[in-house]
């Protein structure tokens, strides 16, 4: 991949330092990226990767250091300056206009002025079609962006960059929003771009991905470059250690479970959605105290509705739920909470946290109404603050203070806030919906350990996750859900991953009839 041109790096960043009040986001970072290279930037959330790329893209000015393009020092004033120098960025959140077509989105902001104020659609379409053909994009230039899948939208973003003749393409966690299938496709595409002589900076915290795609890996921790590795010469374990700064257990030792009496008993639970479709046509399951039941399933097989019924947000249309021998069918979320049900939602920004609120308020979001946080209708600010400080310490939540807005925290620390909140009190049942989605290895390890600890304290744990690896790793038992039914139950320690995968995809042989009718 690296030809004779590689003698001068396409991009060199020297001694980049960026200080924010109270934080050094980048501390003398050196980075060089060659032509035709896929260069991974690896680091935990908050390590300083994004800051570095913002500097490259002209969104932030470094306090020290210089940037060289093809060996020449440049000052990058703003993003449009960066683009004109051949640097493009594909953000995690796409900057697309949903109501416009692919071609219109690609051209937006880079319209040719040949026809004065009028858009030369034909010329634009021609160029887009040529680019798409060259790199094997499968995109209809006239399709409305709003109707495209997330993976396709990402390709529109990349096409945008190519249309602007990007030589250096920065992708900020491009796989975070993709399915495994789409991830494979994007990797093929990125490799083609690199082979064409372009440089790609690939930001990620997923170890296996980085090993799969990168030519070179630079690891950043707390604003500093910690190491430079080539995929063939390193391992996931080593990268994880570089990233986190200590040895990381990539697989948590789930230990032996000490299973107690029956805790959660669900019998023939039926749940319908807003359109009166029966999404869960009858689920029965049991979880005993001190046991983790993992629910494996492809997203959209009734997991959300099942969870919503169990936490009281959705009234079941039939069946029975009891907790520790008490019937809790159809109880409100508040009653569930009182009964000892804890819940970690899948979409923490939407359902789990109030980002504009200070950390201490999010730490009591589900228990604010109880003593000691409230006395009757009055809140006790001192008790809230006191408990917040204790939890911040206990769960190692990295915040300057518990009264900063929760939005300023990294994803891992935000998830820790939810975990701290739900795990802090004695629970009978803990429901976890994708508890480690989007987190870095250090945070995943921490949260998995907390789950095990909660289990060992005698809580029944229901774990729902689309990441089969996670379910396999920590569950004592695995139930496979398919079209709203539990189609198989397996032992968590002995289950075979490919067998579970097959059950998830087909529902096994339990439902051949349904398969046919569907």
């Amino acid at each position, binding site marked *: 991949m690296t030809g004779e041109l590689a003698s001068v790096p396409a991009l060199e960043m020297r001694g980049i330092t960026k200080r924010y009040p109270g934080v050094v986001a980048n501390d003398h970072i050196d980075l060089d990226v060659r032509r035709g290279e896929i260069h991974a930037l690896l680091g935990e959330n908050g390590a300083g990767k994004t800051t570095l790329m913002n500097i490259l893209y002209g969104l932030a000015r470094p306090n020290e250091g210089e940037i060289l393009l093809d060996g020449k020092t440049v000052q990058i004033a703003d993003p449009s300056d960066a683009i004109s120098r051949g640097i493009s960025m594909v953000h995690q959140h796409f900057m697309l206009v949903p109501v416009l077509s692919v071609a219109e989105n690609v051209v937006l902001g880079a319209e040719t002025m040949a026809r004065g104020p009028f858009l030369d659609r034909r010329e634009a379409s021609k160029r887009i079609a040529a680019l798409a053909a060259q790199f094997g994009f499968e995109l209809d230039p006239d399709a409305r962006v709003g109707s495209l899948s997330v993976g396709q939208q990402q390709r529109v973003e990349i096409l945008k960059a190519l249309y602007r003749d990007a030589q250096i393409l920065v992708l900020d966690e491009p796989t975070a929003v993709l399915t495994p299938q789409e991830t494979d496709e994007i990797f093929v595409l990125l490799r083609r771009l690199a082979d064409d002589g372009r440089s790609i900076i690939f930001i990620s915290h997923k170890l296996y991905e980085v090993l799969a795609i990168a030519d070179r890996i630079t690891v950043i921790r707390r604003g500093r470059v910690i190491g430079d590795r080539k995929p063939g010469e390193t391992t996931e374990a080593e990268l994880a250690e570089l990233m986190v700064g200590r040895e990381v257990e990539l697989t948590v030792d789930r230990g032996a479970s000490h299973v107690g009496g029956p805790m959660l008993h669900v019998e023939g639970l039926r749940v319908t959605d807003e359109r009166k479709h029966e999404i869960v046509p009858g689920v029965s399951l049991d979880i005993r105290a001190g046991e983790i039941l993992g629910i494996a399933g492809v997203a959209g097989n009734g997991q959300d509705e099942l969870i919503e019924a169990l936490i009281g947000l959705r009234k079941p249309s039939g069946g029975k739920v009891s907790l520790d021998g008490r019937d809790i069918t159809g109880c409100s979320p508040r009653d569930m909470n009182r009964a000892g049900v804890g819940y970690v939602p899948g979409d923490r920004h939407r359902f789990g*946290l109030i980002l504009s609120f200070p950390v201490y308020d999010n730490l009591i979001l589900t228990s604010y109404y109880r003593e000691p946080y409230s006395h009757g209708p009055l*809140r006790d600010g001192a008790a809230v603050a006191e408990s917040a*400080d204790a939890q911040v*310490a206990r769960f190692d939540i990295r915040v300057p*203070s518990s009264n900063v807005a929760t939005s300023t925290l990294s994803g891992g620390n935000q998830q820790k806030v939810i975990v701290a909140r739900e795990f802090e009190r004695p629970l009978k049942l803990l429901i976890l919906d994708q508890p480690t989605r989007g987190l870095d290895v250090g945070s995943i390890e921490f949260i998995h350990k907390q789950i095990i600890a909660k289990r060992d304290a005698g809580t029944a744990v229901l774990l729902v996750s689309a990441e089969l690896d996670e379910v396999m790793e920590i569950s004592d038992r695995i139930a496979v859900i398919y079209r709203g039914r539990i189609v198989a139950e397996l032992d968590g320690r002995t289950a075979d991953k490919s067998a579970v995968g097959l059950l998830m995809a087909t529902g096994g042989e339990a439902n051949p009839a349904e398969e046919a009718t569907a």
Partner: protein
Amino acid sequence: MSAPAGTAGSGFSLRDWGSSLFWTLAESVTAILLAVVVGGIGITLFSGFLPNNHPAFDVGLPFAAYGALWSGAVGSINGIGSTLSYATPLALAGLGVGLGFKAGLFNIGGRGQFLMGSVGAMAVVTVMGPSQNGLITVPLALIVGGLFGAFAGFIPGALKATSGAHEVVTTIMLNYIFVFATYWAISGPLRLPNSPQAITADASAWGAALPTIHIPEVDILGLHLFGADVLGRDAHYGILLAVLALPVIWFLLFRTTLGFEIRAAGANSDAARYAGMKTKQLVVLTMSMAGGLCGLAGATTLLGVVHQMAPGYDTTIGFDAITVALVGRSNPVGIGLAALLFGGMRAGAQTMQISPGVPGELVDALQMFILLFLVINILRRWMAKRPTGGSALTTGAEVAPLAAEVSK
């Protein structure tokens, strides 16, 4: 993020709080100053077109105008009293709108709620008849006025909770209904019998007015103290209601579990619902409280200032209160200050119109400019924060996060 965990708490807290408050204040103050400058330029440019014969491009006129505004608002005891009396409904209705903002609701129905509050208060006065005991009527009229306003707020709240009808649409539409309901009340049940024109009783003539704040003369060791309208002739006791409401609403928002729920539902209603809060009930309750506050604004204005309703009885408070809530960032402290600012501008406007003869519309223009500059900033922040890709593609016009942004 790299700070040591947990323990660093209190050291940073005050500074964080201080700086965010500083920037919030700075944003409002900047908008006000910009508006003053633009307004001044406007007066100079249009001085030649004013009805009362000013020279064209009169550079001195803005200074004269602002000077008159200032002296009219705070230059005398009567001016201060007038400022306070104008600030009272602004503060009450501003709290009503601000409370809505905190809950993620755009209450555009201040006008209708104010009118219903006035109608409620006048209904009590009418029922009690020509000679009544103000000590009984006035509190009763205030309560009924507040309840009428609360009902006017309850309707859009209930519509939102039950059918999801957006409160912006319903409150605007209800405003028209309440305006005509007010006409109807004035020309029907509240109309004075025998009157040649539709007009209601005069609360002051019937002994049901909120009296001017007056401290009786006391004789201490030969010194004659007080015995005066301490805040001038316009300062009525309704002012105390606003002075009381500000800390009460502050306390509600920041010191009670209900306030926590309101703020949580406003900032992220999904998360609030997942946390077990009854968000629909909160919408109804918050809108009712907001309506009640706007209704109190109407009741105090009627009993303290206007005393009587004629067919033209109306208010711009619904709009003004939005500005007050925005400038005050929906915080009761800020709302109090903003109410004083706009109340002062209105009190000063009278002096300014008489001499140097600048139209009172200047005050409206200033208010609009302040709003404009603030909204530009708020929108800019909201746009910057709004996710633009992925899931956002499916989101339509979701206003609640904007309302939350507004309340920062």
